């Protein structure tokens, strides 16, 4: 801004400091038309300033251009100072937020703000503790002051044992998810359970089936079935001959399963017929 103000305030004579920095003597705006001072014509001021003024010709407020070797913001300063590695390290990947990630082996809850328990480093600088300049080992008499009562500390004092919760590794989750989209053990487990249930249910079912069949048989004994002709129990009643009596006796001897069932109508009758033979 100093340069710009000097440029725009060219009508006024520049301060001595500006002249010392290499600015030419202040002239009126029309002074450019005057013959340029040469090295011989100009008064020989000592040093480089005179040479500069001579070289400036009709121009005033002419400064030397900055050297090309000068370090400016046009160059990448991170590469210039060999900080690419640091930049890639810290800015390339996400840096974890918590202090416990930086100091994982430090015991205690270090992620909490230091102002909570007045353990901040700032307070250590602003209000340094009043202590001597040297550390001396504790003598036997001094150590008697550190005799403690036996027993555990109360829970509110056990700050050393509290550790910040560590997150589980995400890769493990990903692997388990990708590798086991459908866990292979679950169906087998469920199969086992089903089998067990089936095994457990089987005797009950059998009993129920037996009971149902018994009921059916007993019910059918007195009820006429139009599809299969007259009921067997009533055979003796309808045909009051010797053959009918034998048939009824044979049926009563047969187990209920071998008797006529609606599912296998021919089986019971054939067996009955064979027994009759």
């Amino acid at each position, binding site marked *: 801004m100093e340069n710009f103000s000097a440029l725009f305030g060219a009508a006024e004579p520049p301060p001595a400091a500006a002249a010392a920095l290499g600015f030419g003597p202040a002239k009126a705006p029309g002074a*450019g038309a005057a013959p*340029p001072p040469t090295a011989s014509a100009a008064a020989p001021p000592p040093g480089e300033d005179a040479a500069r003024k001579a*070289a*400036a*010709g*009709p*121009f005033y407020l*002419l400064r030397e*251009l900055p050297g090309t070797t000068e370090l*400016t*913001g*046009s*160059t*990448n*300063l*991170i590469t210039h100072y060999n*900080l690419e590695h*640091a*930049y890639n390290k*810290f*800015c390339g990947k996400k*840096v*974890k*937020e*918590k*202090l416990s*990630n*930086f100091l994982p*082996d*430090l*015991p205690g809850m*270090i*992620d*909490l*703000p*230091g*102002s909570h328990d007045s353990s*901040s*480093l*700032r307070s250590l*600088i602003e209000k340094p503790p009043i202590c001597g300049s*040297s*550390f*001396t*080992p*504790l003598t036997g008499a001094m*150590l008697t002051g*550190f*005799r*403690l*009562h*036996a*027993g*555990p*500390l109360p829970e509110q004092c*056990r700050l*050393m*044992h509290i550790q910040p919760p560590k997150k589980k590794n995400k890769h493990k989750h990903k692997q388990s998810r990708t590798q086991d989209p459908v866990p292979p053990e679950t169906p087998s487990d469920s199969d086992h359970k089903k089998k067990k249930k089936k095994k457990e249910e089987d005797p009950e079912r059998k009993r129920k089936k037996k009971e149902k069949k018994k009921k059916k048989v007993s019910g059918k004994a007195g009820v006429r079935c139009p599809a299969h002709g007259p009921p067997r129990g009533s055979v003796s009643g309808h045909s009051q001959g010797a053959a009918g009596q034998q048939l009824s006796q044979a049926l009563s001897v047969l187990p209920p399963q071998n008797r006529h069932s609606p599912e296998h109508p021919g089986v019971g009758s054939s067996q009955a017929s064979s027994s009759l033979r």
Partner: protein
Amino acid sequence: MAEKFDSLEEHLEKFVENIRQLGIIVSDFQPSSQTGLNQKLNFMVTGLQDIDKCRQQLHDISVPLEVFEYIDQGRNPQLYTKECLERALAKNEQVKGKIDTMKKFKSLLIQELTKVFPEDMAKYKTIRGEDPPP
């Protein structure tokens, strides 16, 4: 340089470990562990002496105060380094943009001034020499 920090780091780690063991002894204190406690207390004093000795080697190291704010807030101090680098790069790019714009402005100004004041600009060019294009 790294050796200085290594020795300090080693002493600090030993000190922290000693304090941790001290905490374990104190958390469930038994009368038989009084001698161990006294020993740990004296280790603590010697540990502080060792850390204090490291101060002489590190008198030329300066730490920015902003780092302490990060640590006091329970934040990773590497975040400070990261933000510093990002800020430096952003400022670097900003300044580079300004320099490039000024160079363009200069070349355009010379171009236009040459049209209006050809003689003066010819003298100027003889003094300055041909500027490289921006």
